[in-house]
């Protein structure tokens, strides 16, 4: 069959959602941030809630996420997105409110805001992009950096004895009664992308229930910070990050999946 006969409007099965703006993404080639942005916008499109959704951009590579997502957005001081989301959601409880935060933002400078918003059980979604590093500022060590992993501030590899071990803030907040749904996903392959999108949908749907925080972590690559090609970084991520940060549901409908 001639390609011209295939490439017709009526045969279209996938196109970039119009909820992503025409702006060229500021991310490095192959960076998972772009995919995660698009999945969030696909869910907002499918739920038909474009004018009822408010996002909070972080400090980090995603600082100008508001240029890329065609919804109402605000941008918070470093780590403070859950506090800003709290205020917005309490003013407009009928809106869908989410934060979008890196691991430096959410698990380092914003630790207090993260934990207290989760503990208070704010009715918001938190999308947490864990690339194990401070991407924007040049690849410094983050609390999430793996043991032995090199970064610009741990050039010989992270040494837990002097630098402390990496910690799983996602599992930590799952212990709090204020979290209703907690899960970890990735977006480096088609299967994981489809699962991650379902988790995003769940996080938005949960806001109708008013039962607390839905937090979805995405283990993602920072190929520039890790100094690898995009595909090598995705393989490295599977082999190293996934062992410490396993995929799947951690808390569903307010109940921990493994354990008490």
């Amino acid at each position, binding site marked *: 069959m001639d390609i011209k*006969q*295939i490439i017709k409007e009526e045969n279209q099965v996938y*196109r970039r959602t119009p909820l*992503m703006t025409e702006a060229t993404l500021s991310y490095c*080639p*192959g960076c998972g941030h772009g*995919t995660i942005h698009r999945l969030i916008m696909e869910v907002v499109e499918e739920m038909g809630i474009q004018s009822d959704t408010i996002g909070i951009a972080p400090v980090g590579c995603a600082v100008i996420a508001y240029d890329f997502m065609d919804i109402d957005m605000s941008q918070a001081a470093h780590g403070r997105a859950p506090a800003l989301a709290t205020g917005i959601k309490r003013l407009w409880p009928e809106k869908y409110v989410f934060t979008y935060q890196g691991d430096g933002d959410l698990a380092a400078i914003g630790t207090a805001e993260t934990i207290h918003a989760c503990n208070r059980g704010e009715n918001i979604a938190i999308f947490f992009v864990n690339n194990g590093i401070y991407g924007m500022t040049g690849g410094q060590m983050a609390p999430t950096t793996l043991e032995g992993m090199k970064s610009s501030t741990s050039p010989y590899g992270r040494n837990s004895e002097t630098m402390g071990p990496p910690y799983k803030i996602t599992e930590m907040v799952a212990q709090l009664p204020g979290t209703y749904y907690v899960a970890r996903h990735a977006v*480096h392959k088609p299967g994981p992308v489809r699962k991650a999108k379902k988790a995003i949908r769940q996080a938005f749907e949960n806001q109708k229930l008013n039962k607390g925080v839905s937090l979805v972590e995405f283990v993602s690559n920072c190929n520039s910070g890790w100094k690898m090609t*995009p*595909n090598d970084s995705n393989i490295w991520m599977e082999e190293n990050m996934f062992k410490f940060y396993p995929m799947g549901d951690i808390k569903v409908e307010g109940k921990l999946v493994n354990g008490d």
Partner: protein
Amino acid sequence: MAKAIGAIVVDVERCKGCQVCRVNCPTMTIGMAEEVNGKGYHYAYMENPENCTGCTNCAVVCPDGVITVYRVKQ
């Protein structure tokens, strides 16, 4: 059984040449162009267009969302 035939259209000027689509295509349809786009990236294109099934795998993993997918059943 009906066979699916597909085709992709890459927005060449927005492609960053990251190759994530290429390794995720199950039918080895995608190659990287020898020439570069305006940004200097070797962009993705259908090197083996007859292989494409329109499965959308390449498009869903493209970080920049620059792939549109078409499919017909035959």
